[in-house]
């Protein structure tokens, strides 16, 4: 068993050290956004490319924040002890949800470019869209999105706020309240994430449907989140914080979860693909057919190998999960793969041929910068661990038996 870490000597408040990163983040946000807007303005085909890139980038970063919210709620639901030292970092990631809600505005603006079903003439010419118009219409879509965002922001504020409040009061009532609310919160989470995936992603191709899509988006979100949390912990430690609090035991567990969700993602995406391929029903296979042609097949193959087979082999054994450098490399790789997964989902609707949408790259930088800056700005005055969580001791001395 490990001796206890004396948290008193552990640097755990970012303070002024965060300022350069915050400034850099805002700078990246500005540069990325301006570059993306310039690319949109200069492209010959209007703003369509920009909005698709924006939706992709938003869905990517939202998935990470949602994964973080899921993780935080799950830790309370299961009364987990091991994870307390990394939970504040996850809370910080989940607390980007209000900014993400604000960043949703461009999607609402670009609705006409993004969603075929939002055009009255398209609906008039298409009996299927007429059938769905009770659900797929602009006002109802916006109301639903507002509802999802509202629920997420509300949940994030509750779980992050209570955790921060406990830092000062040390009151266990906060822990009990979070534990009590975690289960119903999971219900809200499951349904809002599912329908958000249906609305934002599935309805890009309004003829296509898959009952699995909510689970698919969630599986990717979990991979993206665990990869981000590992990277975040790694970088925070590189900067000199929590160096003894977060140990290889915690990385080991995070690595296991990253591995598990990588396999889960593969299971879900393979099942979805296999069932559609096997049944070969036109309105379903169209989705995959399009993503196998015009070069998109390469992206799909890259996912098979890069999102599953390679990381599966890399993370299978104990060693790489316990070496934070190696684990951080795998996490970075999987984060890129999760980005590619959503790219492969969203961008083929906009572009028949496989291309690199440069605006996507610019927006990845831009949104990453903005979210990082706002996140670090938020947490810089607070401790990076839940200081007075009653399970902190358990987490600090945690060992993989």
């Amino acid at each position: 068993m490990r001796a206890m870490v004396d948290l008193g000597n552990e640097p755990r408040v970012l303070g002024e050290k965060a300022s350069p990163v915050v400034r850099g983040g805002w700078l990246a946000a500005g540069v990325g956004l301006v570059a993306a807007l310039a690319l949109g303005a200069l492209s010959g085909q209007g703003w369509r490319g920009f909005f698709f890139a924006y939706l992709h980038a938003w869905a990517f970063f939202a998935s990470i924040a949602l994964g973080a919210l899921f993780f935080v709620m799950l830790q309370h639901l299961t009364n987990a002890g091991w994870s307390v030292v990394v939970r504040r970092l996850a809370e910080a990631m989940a607390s980007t949800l209000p900014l993400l809600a604000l960043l949703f505005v461009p999607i609402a603006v670009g609705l006409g470019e993004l969603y075929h079903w939002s055009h009255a003439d398209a609906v008039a010419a298409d009996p299927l869209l007429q059938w769905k118009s009770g659900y797929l219409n602009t006002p109802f879509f916006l109301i639903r999105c507002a509802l999802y965002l509202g629920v997420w922001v509300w949940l994030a504020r509750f779980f992050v706020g209570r955790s921060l409040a406990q830092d000062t009061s040390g009151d266990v009532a906060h822990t009990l309240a979070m534990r009590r609310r975690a289960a119903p919160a999971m219900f809200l989470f499951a349904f809002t994430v599912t329908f958000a995936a249906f609305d934002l992603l599935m309805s890009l191709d309004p003829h296509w449907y898959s009952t699995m899509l909510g689970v698919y988006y969630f599986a990717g979100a979990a991979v993206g989140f665990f990869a981000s949390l590992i990277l975040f912990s790694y970088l925070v430690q590189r900067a000199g914080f929590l160096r003894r609090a977060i140990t290889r035991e915690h990385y080991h567990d995070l690595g296991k979860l990253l591995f598990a969700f990588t396999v889960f993602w593969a299971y879900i995406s393979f099942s979805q693909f296999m069932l559609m391929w096997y049944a070969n029903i036109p309105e379903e296979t169209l989705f995959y057919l399009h993503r196998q042609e015009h070069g998109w097949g390469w992206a799909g193959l890259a996912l098979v190998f890069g999102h599953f087979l390679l990381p599966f082999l890399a993370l299978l054994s104990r060693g790489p999960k316990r070496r934070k450098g190696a684990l951080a490399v795998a996490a970075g790789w999987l984060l890129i793969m999760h980005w590619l997964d959503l790219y492969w989902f969203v961008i083929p609707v906009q572009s028949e041929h496989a291309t690199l949408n440069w605006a996507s790259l610019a927006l990845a930088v831009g949104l990453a910068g903005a979210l990082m800056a706002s996140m670090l700005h938020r947490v810089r005055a607070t401790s990076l661990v839940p200081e007075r969580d009653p399970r902190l001791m358990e987490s600090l001395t945690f060992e993989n038996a």
Partner: protein
Amino acid sequence: MSAIPLDLDNTLERPGERAPLVLGKSDLASITEQVCEIAERPRPSREWWLAFGTSASLTFVLFAMLGYLFWTGLGVWGINQPVAWGFAIINFVFWVGIGHAGTLISAILFLFRQKWRTSINRFAEAMTIFAVICAGLFPAIHVGRPWFEYWLAPLPNQMQMWPNFRSPLLWDVFAVSTYFTVSLMFWYMGMVPDLATLRDRARSKIRQIAYGIAALGWRGSGRHWHRYERAYLLLAALATPLVLSVHSVVSFDFAVSQLPGWHATIFPPYFVAGAIFSGFAMVLTLLIPVRHIFRLESLITPRHLDNMAKIILATGSMVGYSYIIEFFIAWYSGNPYESFTFLNRALGPYAWSYWIMFTCNAIIPQLLWFKRLRQTPGLLLVISIFVNIGMWFERFVIVVTSLSRDFLPSSWGVYWPTWVDLLTFLGSFGLFFTLFLLFLRFLPIVAMAEVKSVVPAAGLELGPHRGHGQYWGEIPHQHDEENER
């Protein structure tokens, strides 16, 4: 040794502390005594004989029905066109689903460091194996001519005939047999130290020899334990994907088709959640009476029941989620056949079965939000039986409603089971309970060696060892030094 009061409410877990998982006089010797005593009674109770007699008679009915089936042919069943899959496939999916709790508890909960599983894993694993035996029976007899069963295996042969490798029905053969093999291995390997305990305590020659052979020469040396723990971890890791794969492949049997109500991409995870749901329900159905009869309340505490009830609530909600999503997408797809199928399920000739399913699976388990209910074993038993019923009807709904009314109204039909169908199904319960009663009679029904690793006597409270599910903080009321051994 210390004793934690039996009436301590260990479902309450104050933040920062871990509740004890074993109550009462929980030193190592008394655990051995308590568990071994059940298998060492000189003769079983009258109730055991009564139960055994009933289930053995039902097993006899099963074999009589099989004989009749083989002699006469599949015409004795209710299956026909268009419903060519009837009770046999429903029962297969039902039983194989029940067979999911054991591996989940022994593999996945092990990897998640849920130490409370130690009190119930042996029990659940045994139940898994018996359920998979019952499950395997049904497809085997459904092929019609069971003497050609070996055609399912890809055996090189003169006729150059091979099974269709693209068929999920063949994948099933591999998935279920792999699952059975691994579950059996896991169960047996985990039992070796306990079998050795029974061997060492045996008084008669026959028992010494029988348990001696089964214990494989286990002596409990440090090296034995070291290798045992390693093997256990590896088997747990290997069994974990099996928990998902078996019922996923079973769901493929349906979902690869184009039939509305069968072809849904959510089927694999939905089936897995349903399997765990039904498996845990069956564990509770069996465990609550057994716990009461054999006075195992100190080992299988209110916390264990509470946790199992929560897993039933969680997986039941996943099943409910799938029902809702399927319904929504059936409408959203705009596919008239999809919409029809789901409306037909809810309002058509088999609507009663749909509403039994929906009530038992999606509504009744929601009562488990109430803590008082989770802690009343009698009510929990009732709910778990409802879940068993509901999950059987789920498979009935899937198989029968979709087949009986598909694309062409001219080819619609109705399905009703015959008395042979019903008696065969009843007989499978006989087989299940016969095996289960034999297990209760002769084997250690609680994993003694594993439970001993989570009791205070294991010395965990002496140092700040904070592995998950172990003690952290003060253990309430355990300081009676005078009982120290």
